[in-house]
């Protein structure tokens, strides 16, 4: 066991600090939205040019072209967090679409989309889920039929974040209706301004319209917008879904949240209350367990060992823990724990109340907790899938 990073990495850390020092006056604070104000876009460009965002994207596509190095990424994260400075835009285009395109896209597609996406000039939304296809995503029904040089799309997507801000969508659609369900799907890019496409905001219990429904009524998409081969879409989309799942429930934010929760308990005078202290220590143990667990996963990745079954629990445990931390903070606030953003007496402008509800959404989103448990029992523990009797019903 060795928790130090070594001298060459400490040298790299000094470089990161020098960059942060030099850009103090223009760096936006850590908490920023996805929309991209002029300041955020300017910052995003500086990060890409300096190699602090999309660091490993090849130079010919507008990236920094660095070799993948997990420890360097961790150091960048640590130093930016310490400085309280934004890590740049973190939308699904950057985190999911660009890696997918690098793996499956052709040269034209890469040249056309990667540069604008990583610089924050092109916003993407993800068109995967459908009203009838949540946990069983591969049963999706939105169809794309080839008509000359265009695909014609009909159907509906749901839970689409940033659909109203996005210029483009990367979507999974059914192109081969007669193939087995996993083999009939293609990965298509859709212009959000295309005729026949409508967006309806979907309001969450938090009161925010973070999601949307997107309807396709004979929406025409050029054939060259296909990523990978026809019918290969499930494979293409799945490559980045795993990545998304690991982002949900990441441990570093949880520790920050725990530390802020201790402050809430102290400020509301319940830190010395035995019941609250007991609850807090239960949460502390889980928080640190997840922190060290993520260090264990990181070590596996550094040593190029395949992730073991223990990696499957990050999302399940992390989202639940974040939810429980927010719940403890709200309990400590007594009646004021019910107040909404904008109310008098509300703490942190309702951030904890929002977090409490939002994390419940994350327990469900990206694969429900129950689906996660199926995966853990099947992949981690070698238990059998449910018998196939339900197959006919799903499609």
């Amino acid at each position, binding site marked *: 066991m060795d928790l130090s990073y070594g001298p060459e990495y400490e040298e790299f850390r000094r470089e990161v600090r020098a960059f942060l020092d030099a850009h103090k006056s223009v760096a936006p604070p850590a908490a920023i939205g996805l929309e991209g104000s002029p300041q955020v876009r300017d910052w995003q460009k500086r990060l890409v040019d300096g190699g602090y965002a999309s660091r490993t994207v090849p130079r010919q596509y507008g990236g920094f072209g660095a070799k993948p190095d997990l420890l360097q990424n961790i150091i960048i994260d640590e130093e930016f967090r310490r400085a309280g400075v934004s890590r740049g835009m973190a939308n699904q285009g950057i985190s999911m679409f660009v890696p997918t395109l690098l793996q499956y896209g052709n040269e034209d597609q890469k040249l056309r989309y990667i540069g604008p996406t990583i610089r924050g000039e092109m916003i993407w939304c993800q068109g995967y889920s459908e009203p009838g296809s949540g946990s069983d995503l591969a049963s999706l029904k939105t169809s794309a039929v080839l008509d000359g040089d265009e695909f014609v799309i009909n159907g509906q997507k749901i839970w689409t974040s940033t659909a109203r801000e996005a210029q483009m969508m990367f979507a999974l659609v059914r192109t081969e209706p007669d193939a087995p369900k996993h083999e009939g799907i293609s990965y298509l890019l859709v212009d959000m301004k295309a005729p026949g496409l409508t967006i309806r905001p979907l309001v969450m219990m938090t009161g925010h319209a973070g999601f949307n429904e997107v309807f396709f009524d004979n929406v025409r998409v050029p054939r060259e917008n296909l990523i990978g081969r026809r019918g290969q879409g499930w494979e293409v989309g799945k490559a980045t879904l795993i990545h998304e799942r690991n982002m949900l429930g990441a441990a570093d934010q949880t520790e920050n949240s725990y530390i802020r929760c201790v402050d809430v308990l102290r400020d509301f005078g319940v830190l010395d209350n035995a019941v609250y*202290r007991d609850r*807090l*220590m239960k949460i502390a143990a889980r928080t640190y367990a997840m922190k060290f667990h993520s260090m264990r996963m990181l070590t596996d990745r550094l040593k190029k060992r395949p992730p073991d079954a223990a990696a499957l629990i990050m999302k399940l445990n992390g989202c639940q823990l974040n939810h429980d931390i927010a719940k403890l903070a709200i309990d400590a606030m007594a009646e004021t724990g019910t107040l909404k953003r904008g109310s008098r007496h509300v703490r942190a402008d309702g951030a904890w109340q929002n977090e409490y509800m939002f994390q419940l959404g994350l327990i469900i989103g990206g694969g429900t907790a129950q689906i996660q448990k199926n995966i853990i029992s099947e992949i981690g523990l070698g238990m059998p899938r449910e018998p196939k009797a339900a197959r006919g019903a799903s499609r």
Partner: protein
Amino acid sequence: MDFGLSDDQTLFQSSLRGFLGEKVPTGRVRTIMESASGHDASLVQQLGEQGVTGILVPAEYGGTGLSLLDAAVAAEELGRAAVPYSFHAAAVLAPLLLAASSNEARKSEWLPRIAEGRATLGAIVAGPEVRDGRLSGSASFVPDAAVASAFVVRCGSGPSAQFHVVPRTASGLRVEALSTIDDTRRVGEVFFDGVAVDAGTNLEIADASAGFERALDAARIVLAADSLGAAERSLDEAVKYALTREQFGRVIGSFQAVKHMCAEVFAEIEPLRSLLWYAAFAWDERRDDAPMMAALLKSHACEAATEATTTCVQVYGGMGFTYECDMQLWFKRAGYNRQMLGSPAALRELAAARMS
């Protein structure tokens, strides 16, 4: 950056698991725990040959002088196999207190014998008092009380505490067995009726208060490791059973209700293992957060292990509740670990007090 076990530790783990699987199957565990003494001297010697008893004994006294993280690896395996041996006392508390001593005579007398598995020392953490060179009082829940060669006795408390090594045969010392839910590690009550102690028996531990807390934390960490071992073995056995037992025309392990029970146990155990590794490492490195982590770990491990073994017993249905079913071994083992050296609630209170 390397968080986890070294190659040597992984090798030690698999070889010890192999050894215990072959030499200490649950049949032998049952034979020993159902015997009058609950103790098998030949087993302790075998553990000595495997390097288990001397893991924290310094090399100059015949041990391997390894780290607490190595000891945690061993403890996890002993818990997995439900080995009838009080590792936390005989191989951790007693040798750590002896190793911290400046009484060369006592160290040379006991440490090599502990390392070889030829002596078992009980550890007494509270109870007796010294007055005019004589020990009086009693102590309960003393590991291996009936069979220990000697006891490392903590007399008094705080900075003025003394630690004496008292042979079990000392005049004025009497032992009565206590019967607990877990027969794999016996405890007893030890009575001191004017037992003579002197400079020869005094361990002369410098900074006795801090040294004792540190040794106690080490014992808590290995009890947590033992609980982890018990929990993961329960899960292994429960999953195996669920893959063979059929009801309603299919194996019960194909029902989501059963799969989710097992997945929940798995999701509790794995981060616990990561916390265990860090707590042991922090203790070894004397990090600032080590005392808090030891308390957090022990409380968390014992909660997780009692929940895990409770769930796994239920996977077996009614059979899980029988004496015949081996699940009782880990269920009771977790129950013993839970109460010893601080219950979960007491240790959460301690962790809060140790929070910086």
